[in-house]
């Protein structure tokens, strides 16, 4: 009965891992976004890049300053396309510039897109090239870049997607290697027990007479056929999941479940459980890998983010209008993005600003909308100048608007700026000074010039003549963090992508991993727990032959390794020295096996350690090898932030993968040397 149950499990398990009907995939499209910088920005940007090419330092700095002013006047948070092109060109031209000029320009360029991390890393690179001793500024710039990454969701999502891609590939490779090695280590015991499920054939020959008898053609045929069939049963049962479409991961799960009862209690069980747990991580990593692609498709939240804080194309504005026209609940992010995208194109047009103000009515009231409303009112006041002074009613309205914003977010420097401008233009100088004092405490050092500009410009008799300067001091709400951008994304909207999915998962949908992995882990522990209660095959500690209690009793009447018993019943005329010599020859054979395993450790780090029973070391080395393999396998990252693309990596051979591989191989060789006597 137990045999039948075990056979049933052996047959059903692979079928259970057979994948269901695959889900259809959305059509492939690169979905290249159109690049539409406002014409007022496009020409200065081209002149900046042209000046950079001919190394005209003064011109470069003037263009950067002009672009930054234009960006601020248009309420654009980041001129990412310009910044990306600048970084791409600066990488080539920067080394040719004078050290001081290069470093200064790199720092100044940060204002083109303060939330674009490559600009900060460009500063680091420039410092490294021209002034390697300035470690402190380099570290500060690098930290600023990392901090900016949190404000640049597209870059962060792309980075996370690329890391997840490599991690999932490394995990898959490591999982399959671990499962394969653990199976290989215990396959003799497994084969013995599978063989015991079937009627027992004549016992193995223990003497030459039996060997001689076993040389008869019929015996050879029967024995060979039985061995071939047993190997066929074991092979089919173990490898059936692959043609069934369960991929290498599904097959590896089966192997670990089957091999579970044979694992030693210590490290091996932990490592096997760990490797099953790897499967847990594959699904979240696949989701993360698919996230950039899913966000880039259609009218995702990144569209609203780009239109609100960068520049966006006409078709993107149309897409936002389509979202706004939908019957379902209005989305504040889309509404803000729509009005900002329109204002970006013509920030001085009263009609555009008025339309933007009315457009905000559709957005739910929150701090960002309140600040924008006040910003637009202030800009409208400047656009509707009555002679030399702005529209006073609008200014009063704007001041009230700004005053209402800090009530809920008292540390908003954007609101304080607008409030100071409104107060200054209304002639409330003392209030303005108080506001500026509060603002100074919040502004970074490089923005302190703004305070002077606000103070000076609002004090002029004809501020409307300097409306552009004042517009440049008005700030939109800061870009929301990545989590806010991704809020509302459902898992159903993300298409999970697993590296080498067809190889590792076959026809199993990636989503199935979300529940398959926990089920496999439970099955593994059940297998370990229940399997240990059975009289399973074991490798004799003395002679290394695989046997089991039932076979022992069948062979000799005792639960004792029959091969070892045979050693004990040798005739008395044999010199003990010959027995020792025999033992020596056997050990020499085993030594060859150990040498082969050691060689395997040098060829496939971790594999030899797993076969030697050094499970934990093997796990780490296999993971290291798998990660290095992914670096070599796919040297280029699959996800590319098109809008923030700053050029491809250097065409030279990458240094990290070979270095990492060398470290892994060295550690494996060192471990093999230190463990050589085991």
């Amino acid at each position, binding site marked *: 009965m137990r045999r039948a149950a075990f056979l049933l499990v052996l047959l059903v398990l692979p079928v259970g891992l057979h994948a269901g009907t695959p889900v259809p995939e959305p059509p492939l*499209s690169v979905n290249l976004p159109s690049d539409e910088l406002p014409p007022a920005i496009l020409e200065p940007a081209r002149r900046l890049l042209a000046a950079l090419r001919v190394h005209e330092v003064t011109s470069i700095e003037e263009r950067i300053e002009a672009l930054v002013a234009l960006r601020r006047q248009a309420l654009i948070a980041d001129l990412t396309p310009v910044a990306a092109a600048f970084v791409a060109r600066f990488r080539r031209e920067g080394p040719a510039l004078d050290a001081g000029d290069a470093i200064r320009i790199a720092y100044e360029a940060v204002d083109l897109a303060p939330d674009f991390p490559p600009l900060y890393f460009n500063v680091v690179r420039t410092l490294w090239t021209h002034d390697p001793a300035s470690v402190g500024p380099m570290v500060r710039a690098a930290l600023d870049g990392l901090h900016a990454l949190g404000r640049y969701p597209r870059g962060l999502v792309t980075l996370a997607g690329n890391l997840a891609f490599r991690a999932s590939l490394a995990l898959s490779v490591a999982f399959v290697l671990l499962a394969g090695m653990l199976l290989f280590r215990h396959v003799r015991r497994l084969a013995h027990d599978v063989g015991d499920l079937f009627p027992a054939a004549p016992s193995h020959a223990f*003497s030459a007479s039996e060997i001689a008898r076993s040389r008869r053609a019929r015996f050879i045929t029967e024995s060979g056929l039985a061995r071939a069939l047993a190997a066929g049963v074991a092979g089919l049962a173990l490898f059936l999941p692959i043609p069934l479409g369960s991929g290498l991961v599904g097959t590896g799960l089966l192997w670990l479940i089957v091999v579970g009862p044979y694992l030693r209690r210590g490290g091996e069980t932990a490592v096997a459980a760990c490797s099953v747990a790897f499967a847990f991580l594959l699904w979240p990593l696949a989701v993360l890998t698919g996230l950039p692609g899913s966000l880039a498709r259609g009218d995702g939240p990144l569209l609203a983010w780009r239109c609100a804080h960068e520049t966006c194309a006409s078709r993107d504005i149309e897409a936002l209008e389509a979202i706004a026209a939908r019957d379902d609940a209005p989305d504040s992010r889309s509404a803000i993005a729509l009005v900002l995208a329109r204002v970006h194109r013509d920030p001085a047009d009263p009609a555009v600003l008025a339309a933007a103000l009315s457009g905000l009515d559709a957005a739910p009231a929150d701090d960002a909308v309140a600040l924008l409303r006040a910003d637009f009112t202030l800009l409208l006041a400047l656009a509707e100048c009555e002679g030399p002074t702005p529209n006073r009613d609008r200014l009063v309205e704007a001041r009230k608007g700004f005053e209402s914003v800090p009530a809920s977010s008292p540390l908003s420097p954007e609101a304080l700026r607008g409030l100071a401008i409104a107060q200054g233009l209304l002639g409330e100088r003392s209030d303005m000074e108080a506001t500026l004092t509060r603002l100074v405490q919040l502004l970074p050092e490089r923005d302190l010039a703004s305070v002077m500009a606000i103070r000076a410009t609002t004090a002029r008799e004809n501020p409307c003549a300097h409306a552009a300067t004042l517009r440049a001091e008005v700030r939109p709400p800061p870009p929301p963090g990545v989590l806010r951008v991704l809020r509302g994304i459902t898992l159903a909207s993300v298409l999970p992508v697993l590296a080498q999915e067809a190889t590792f998962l076959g026809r199993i949908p990636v989503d199935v991993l979300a529940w398959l992995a926990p089920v496999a882990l439970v099955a593994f522990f059940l297998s370990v727990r229940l399997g240990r209660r059975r009289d399973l095959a074991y490798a004799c500690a003395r002679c290394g032959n695989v046997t089991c209690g039932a076979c022992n009793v069948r062979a000799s*009447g005792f639960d004792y390794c029959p091969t070892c018993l045979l050693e*004990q019943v040798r005739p008395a*005329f044999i010199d003990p*020295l010959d027995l020792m*010599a025999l033992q020596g020859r056997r050990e020499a054979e085993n030594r060859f096996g150990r040498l082969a395993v050691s060689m395997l450790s040098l060829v496939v780090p971790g594999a030899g350690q797993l076969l030697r029973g050094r499970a934990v070391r093997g796990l780490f080395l296999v993971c290291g090898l798998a990660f290095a393999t992914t670096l070599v396998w796919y040297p280029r990252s*699959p996800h*590319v932030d098109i809008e923030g693309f700053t050029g491809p990596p250097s065409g030279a051979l990458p240094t990290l993968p070979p270095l990492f591989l060398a470290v892994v191989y060295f550690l494996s060789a060192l471990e093999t040397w230190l463990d050589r006597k085991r």
Partner: protein
Amino acid sequence: MTPSSRDPEPQASSGSPLYRTLLEAYRSGRDGVITVARSGEDTRTPITLRRGRVVSVSHNNTTIQGVASMLVRVGILSDRELEKARREATRREVYLEDYLVQRGLISKGTIAAAREKAAVELLMDFLLRHDLEVTATWSAPRGVRETFALPIPYLLKEAQRRASLAPAIRRVVTGPDCVFAKASDVHGREVPARWEDLQVSAAERQVYFFVDGRRTVSDLILATSQSEFEVALALHALVEMQLVIPVHGAGPGRATRHAERSALARIGGLTVAVIALLGVLYLVLGAGAGGQASLRPDPFESLLQEAPLRRIAGAIRIANLCADVDPTSHEDLVRAGLALPEDRRASILLRAGQSDPRDAASPVGESNAETLGGHDSRGDHP
């Protein structure tokens, strides 16, 4: 050496011709060669006597080949090792015995002991036989190699002992085809829980190990490398101790049939399992083949194929801002450090308006055309 009071007295075996000849040689202190042949057979076995001892028996069992076969039977040498040693000894033109010793495969002591044992068993067989033709040549043999020294009194006494024990043993072990089984296997009788608790001699322990209810006495003789007498004696003792019992009607034919039946049953079971697994494979693959059309393309492959397109798209965006880079020329993009040479194919596809590298016939995507076209205000390209 002269006869003494310790001379063996003729008993049951005293009627055998070899017994009489050896006794006479021992009493008269003669050296010489006794040639033994079975009646009606041409094979003769010379037995050399010197100083009251048997020093050589020329027989196949006492040659190094016979001894080596015995050592293979007891598992101290493997077939492969012996074959290799034979080849090497022939190639090097040395004696097999010397080669085995040189190679450390076996010691001289073991070879000598095995040869002595083979000689003793052979002589015991001759001493208990009455159908032998024995001729003696009483002259000091020359050129005969002394391979052992078996005292004649010992041989004669041992022959007497075996002759006296034979009737009792024959009542239990009736012939070479007898089969015995462990009592525990037949009656479920309790046996000592541990092998080392078995209170029997080494020889009996060895026989007990190989008794399995199917092996005949002949099989046990071969398996244990003991003599027929020793095996029978051990079986007799084990039966007395009720550790083994004879299995009646279980001759070699029955054992063979049992072995064949069990082998066939195993093959049958394995075949059924293989067929079942192959059937599952066929059914599932057959079902899967019908649904191939509905399989989705691998999103991972799509991702990899899109990556160069994305890189080129990003490069074109930058080139659109640079007056000195032609976004429609891949060479220009590469020269400007914006694209990789290996992305040429993606560049061509994008220029052709195809975003999907797998489908060159698909219509031009509007978005791609927009990107490739760049900005309308741009007019400074060649």
